[in-house]
């Protein structure tokens, strides 16, 4: 299957729509508007930035190898696993002291570092290195890595990861994804890696300069179903050949290591560890409506050869399905944090903004929108927490994660939509961050992979 690697030339017009005479006239005007004449006369206001990076699609390049991952550890021996969090069977909404401490630190990072950097990062389609460094400094990449492997956790961290993702995205969702992308791969290695895989790759995350890495699951097809990937892994004598295209891959141009989802000859899905720089692995910019600070890319795999031991976890589909779930859970947490950011922003705004002689918040039509925002946000949060706590306790959470994803996709988008509406014209312009949150919240329900808890 070949997915279009260039932007569509139909500009989003459906094939059932067509030009009428006025349409042809308008199209001709548009040709003129695009001609270089305007530029030579110096009447175009903004020069387009023709840099590669990820602000534009269509510039395809081979991935470049990062650090060399020296093989280590024992092939085939199971890796170290974080244990399940203790469960007392008490209904409780109180985080542990450690979790609260971490959330406080992350909240400060989100407020002091992420939020001020958010608008520029969104425009540049890149998170500044110093912001990424700040995330590394507080240990985000190794949050889900067991202590014995140089990480921070002594048990399953799905709940902690959920709280952290929520707190980060309260600052900015795009940057949150950028800062969580490599830690997601490290967590995946901790959950499913063999002794060899952990010994080979985890040191690159636990050191001073944590590796960039990315989890690639989404594909550029309409009605994409993560459980039916078109990317294939064909068995060969000494490993697999991977073919396919992955879209919306965070920081793909920088990543030194990818975890890629693919379907085996057996019909089961599996995850593969693919090092950047391997033959046939190309990357290009894949900018989208939102989540732009995460430098989204499209990853093309053409006859990419990987060894047998590149399979991460089981080859019967179980690990792959679990990975999809944990990723969806992380996106739910990001939706909750972003929703909270919207609520935090509109609350003072509607109390200050006056119309007809009093604050607009004094009108029920406005106040009730805020009330519904608060109600649905808390509903999203509780459902996400329930799912996360079940994962942390080692229970099946497939139903809860599925439901949380449905709720966060629809109610999260509604919060973004109402956030813009409550600010009126001010919500539509970039003076306020609500238009960015609107764009970011559309990602929930669309994105698969990229982050996981």
């Amino acid at each position, binding site marked *: 299957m070949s997915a279009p690697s260039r932007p569509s030339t139909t500009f989003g017009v459906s094939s059932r729509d067509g030009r009428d005479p006025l349409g042809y006239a308008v199209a001709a005007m548009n040709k003129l508007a695009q001609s270089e004449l305007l530029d030579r006369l110096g009447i175009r206001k903004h020069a387009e930035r023709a840099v590669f990076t990820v602000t534009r699609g269509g510039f395809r390049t081979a991935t470049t190898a990062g650090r060399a991952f020296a093989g280590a550890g024992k092939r085939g021996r199971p890796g170290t696993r974080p244990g399940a969090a203790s469960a007392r069977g*008490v209904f409780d909404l109180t985080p542990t002291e450690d979790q609260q401490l971490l959330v406080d630190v992350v909240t400060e990072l989100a407020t002091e570092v992420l939020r001020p950097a958010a608008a520029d990062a969104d425009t540049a389609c890149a998170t500044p290195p110093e912001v990424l460094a700040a995330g590394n400094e507080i240990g985000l990449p190794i949050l889900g890595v067991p202590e014995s492997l140089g990480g921070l956790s002594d048990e399953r961290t799905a709940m902690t990861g959920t709280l952290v993702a929520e707190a980060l995205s309260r600052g900015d969702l795009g940057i949150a994804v950028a800062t969580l992308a490599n830690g997601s791969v490290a967590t995946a290695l901790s959950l499913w890696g063999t002794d060899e895989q952990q010994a080979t790759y985890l040191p690159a995350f636990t050191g001073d300069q944590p590796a960039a890495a990315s989890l690639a699951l989404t594909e550029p097809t309409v009605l994409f179903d993560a459980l039916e990937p078109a990317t294939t892994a064909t068995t060969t004598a000494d490993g697999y050949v991977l073919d396919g295209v992955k879209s919306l891959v965070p920081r793909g141009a920088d990543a030194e290591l990818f975890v890629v989802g693919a379907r085996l000859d057996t019909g089961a899905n599996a995850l593969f560890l693919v090092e950047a720089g391997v033959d046939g692995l190309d990357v290009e910019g894949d900018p989208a409506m939102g989540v732009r600070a995460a430098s989204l890319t499209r990853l093309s795999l053409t006859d990419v050869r990987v060894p047998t031991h590149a399979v991460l976890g089981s080859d019967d589909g179980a690990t792959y399905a679990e990975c999809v779930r944990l990723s969806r859970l992380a996106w739910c947490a990001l939706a909750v944090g972003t929703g909270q950011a919207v609520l935090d922003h509109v609350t003072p705004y509607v109390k200050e903004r006056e119309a007809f002689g009093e604050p607009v*918040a004094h009108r029920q039509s406005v*106040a*009730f929108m805020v*009330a519904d925002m608060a109600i649905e946000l808390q*509903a999203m949060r509780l459902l996400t927490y*329930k799912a996360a706590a079940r994962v942390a306790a080692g229970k099946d959470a*497939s139903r809860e994660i599925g439901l949380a994803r449905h709720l966060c996709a629809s109610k999260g988008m509604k919060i973004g939509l109402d956030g813009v509406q409550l600010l009126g014209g001010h919500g539509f312009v970039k003076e306020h961050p609500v238009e960015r949150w609107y764009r970011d919240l559309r990602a929930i329900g669309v994105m698969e992979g990229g982050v996981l808890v």
Partner: protein
Amino acid sequence: MTINLDDPKKLVQLRDQAHQVAMNMLRPISRKYDAAEHAYPKELDLLAAMIDGVAESGASSGAGAAGVKRDDEEHPGVRNGTNLASVMSIAEMCWGDVGLLLSLPRQGLGNSAIASVADAEQQERFAGVWASMAITEPGTGSDSANIRTTARLDGDEYVINGEKIYVTSGERCDAVVVWATLDRSLGRAAIKSFVVLKGTPGMEVERLEHKLGIRSSDTAAIRFVDCRVPMENLLGSPEIDTSSGGFAGAMATFDNTRPLVAAMAIGCARASLDLARDLLEQAGVTIDYERPAHVQSAAAATYLRMEADWESARLLMLQAAWLADNGKPNSLEASMAKAKAGRVGSDITLSCVELCGSVGYGEGELLEKWARDSKILDIFEGTQQIQQLIVARRVLGLTSAELK
């Protein structure tokens, strides 16, 4: 302390027992008393006796609106107590039948009020009394501070005059807790509640309403004409304290009862979801939690949306009860729970009728009945709009004068 939102282990047995009672005692008579409106469901006497027995044994809080009084005792750690037990068991009972749950002897809202605000002497005197609650008047619904029923002190008795409507179990109960004002000019601070025993001269049940749903529950209009009650029957303080929130105290009862109504909506909606899923699966519809809704059938997509709404509404309900169990303020969360559960209850029960077509609409199944029963749950104990008003004021930090 560990975040966990699964049902508390120690209450699972109570929940499952309530489910069995609902399945085996309420469901078999559900349609019968929907059809025979105003007939007394005599089967409930046995059930009420059973609940009394369980309550006396101290094993649990029972299945109804028993005590919602805050327990001020010092307990170490996080508590999963009476409030969680109540919402969980009420939800299960309402999975059986909302109207019958409301008709359970000695489990009325008046009992909640007595349990919440009565002093020790009154608790003892009114023990075993089935008490209903009379707040609403023909001209006063949501703005309960505006009631016109008066209570005038004459000697050692209060003389009550006025008309109350929508009194749940107003005919079958032993006593009515009536809201009346001592002095209309002093506003909400002058509103007090009085226990009026049945048979007191001057109190008369005028009529029973014919309703859209919860038809097994009797809803009475009661008139008070120079009805004299002993002054010891006033609940709480007789003083009119305009400075602090005397009325706020009365309204605070709602913080405890609103999660219970949310529980009713949760139970009723779950009944619809369970049956609809069964019927849909028989019709060949499969519901997959992990596939995108868009690659499933429209019926499955609708179902997933409803179940996500339901699950989150139930968690809001549990949150409100958990806060109460742990002595934390829950006014905001109680209103959030009732707002979400109320509207989700209507949406789910109505959508399940639609999904199941004429099977859902016909009286052959109970889906149409649940779609009628659920509507009241978005109205009584504070309508959807009142809940939104409360949530909005809290979130925005506005007074009732600013956000009217």
